[in-house]
């Protein structure tokens, strides 16, 4: 209720629609009503983004001359000199130890494609919010006006002095693999491509628990991954390290087969003797992991899988199959969406990953850190709670980032990459 008088009432009604077209249909319906006057219509999502979503705040007040003299000139000069003489002190005397750069070239923004750097900025701002809210990390969006691999690598190396870690985001495959690998080799701060490893870690966590439910083991199941981009390749690599031995990957042309001549290095890594379509791959498979496109999976394909099939339809925002279509056919279903059970969401991983890496000043990210992170996420769902609608903790479970950070630190120390 906004206001009222004897004759009229003014009310705000908030409505969730299913699409832009649906929203327009609702507005038209209300406008067509007799005696009802539409005074205004607000798109709540656009309103939320106006002016941007984050800002920089000072930690200390600047009220007196003495504050200025210490925080800025001339006092700051003493700090600069101390760091120049002992570069290690940059970690204790500046923002570096708690600051992450979120770097993108805007070439693969969500599932929307190559939107460029400005088009990517709202996502990077949102990511910065998540870093702050879930792990207390100050992250800043860096959207680069280049999609050249060498230029990206050079730019990130040049800005690295400010940051304790680099989160690569929404950079298209296969360039993302080289950019990450080169930066990790050439810099002494952790580099993490969230689209690859964040997705892989949470997928592994969910799969660990899903397999417990169906009483199958990682080394015995046949897993089909649909989508051979950044996320698909990273999932395959991490599952392999976690003990999966029977992995088939598919791209838009079908199974990554030794017979194919169109595979890049990353795809060739997972080529198998079998060939055919996704439908062929799924016959008798135990697990479907989708990081592909809406509608790629059909009811018939699910019904051709082994008993108690596990289906993770993670294409976002529209999954590979509408979960309702196979409710009675699957043992466990997960999606990337918040409005279905079992949301496979990277936010379960990356805040804790960086919290742990920054706190122990890890010089690099290692596979053990990812495996331990996945194990930590999975372990937060205890055996009494575990059911087919609860295989991963909620993204709002306050234990998650702490548990992941602890696991990551332990792994970093065991791997000898921790400095602090």
């Amino acid at each position, binding site marked *: *209720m906004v206001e009222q008088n004897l004759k009229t009432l003014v009310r705000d009604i908030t*409505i969730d629609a299913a699409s832009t077209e*649906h929203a327009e249909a*609702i507005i038209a319906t209300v406008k067509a009503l007799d*005696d009802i006057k539409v005074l205004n219509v607000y798109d709540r999502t656009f309103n939320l983004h106006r002016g941007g979503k984050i800002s920089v705040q000072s930690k200390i007040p600047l009220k007196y001359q003495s504050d200025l003299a210490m925080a800025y000139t001339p006092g700051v000069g003493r700090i600069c000199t101390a760091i120049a003489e002992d570069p290690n002190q940059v970690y204790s005397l500046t923002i570096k130890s708690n600051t992450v750069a979120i770097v993108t070239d805007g070439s693969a923004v969500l599932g929307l494609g190559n939107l460029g750097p400005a088009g990517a900025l709202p996502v990077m701002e949102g990511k910065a919010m998540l870093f702050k809210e879930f792990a207390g990390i100050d992250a800043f969006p860096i959207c680069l006006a280049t999609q050249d691999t060498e230029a990206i690598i050079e730019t990130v190396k040049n800005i690295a002095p400010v940051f304790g870690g680099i989160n690569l985001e929404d950079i298209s495959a296969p360039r993302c693999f080289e950019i990450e690998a080169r930066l990790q080799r050439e810099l002494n701060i952790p580099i993490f491509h969230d689209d690859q490893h964040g997705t892989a870690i949470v997928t592994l966590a969910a799969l660990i628990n899903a397999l417990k439910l169906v009483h199958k083991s990682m080394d015995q199941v046949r897993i089909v991954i649909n989508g051979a981009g950044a996320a698909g390749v990273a999932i395959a690599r991490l599952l392999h390290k976690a003990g999966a031995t029977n992995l088939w990957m598919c791209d838009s042309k079908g199974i990554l087969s030794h017979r194919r001549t169109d595979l890049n290095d990353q795809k060739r890594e997972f080529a198998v003797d079998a060939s055919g379509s996704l439908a062929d791959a799924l016959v008798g498979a135990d697990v479907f992991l989708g990081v592909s496109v809406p509608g790629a999976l059909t009811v018939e394909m699910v019904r051709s899988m082994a008993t108690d099939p596990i289906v993770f339809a993670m294409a976002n925002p529209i999954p590979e199959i509408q979960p309702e279509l196979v409710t009675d056919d699957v043992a466990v279903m997960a999606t990337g969406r918040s409005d279905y059970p079992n949301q496979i969401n990277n936010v379960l991983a990356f805040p804790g990953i960086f919290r742990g890496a920054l706190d122990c000043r890890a010089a690099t990210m290692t596979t053990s850190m990812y495996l331990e992170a996945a194990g930590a996420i999975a372990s937060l769902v205890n055996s009494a709670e575990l059911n087919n609608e609860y295989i991963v903790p909620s993204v709002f479970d306050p234990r998650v980032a702490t548990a992941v950070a602890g696991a990551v630190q332990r792994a970093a120390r065991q791997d000898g990459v921790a400095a602090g």
Partner: protein
Amino acid sequence: MVSLTPNPSYSLTIRIQLPHQAGMLAVVTHAIAPPEAALDPSTW
């Protein structure tokens, strides 16, 4: 592909003026109902 469920991504607020008479809000909610939108009761 079945259409997606209503979700906050496409959330809108409509400010309406209606006669101060019993049942008018119901007229609005009834009219919106067929498109299967989800109304947020906390904001009425």
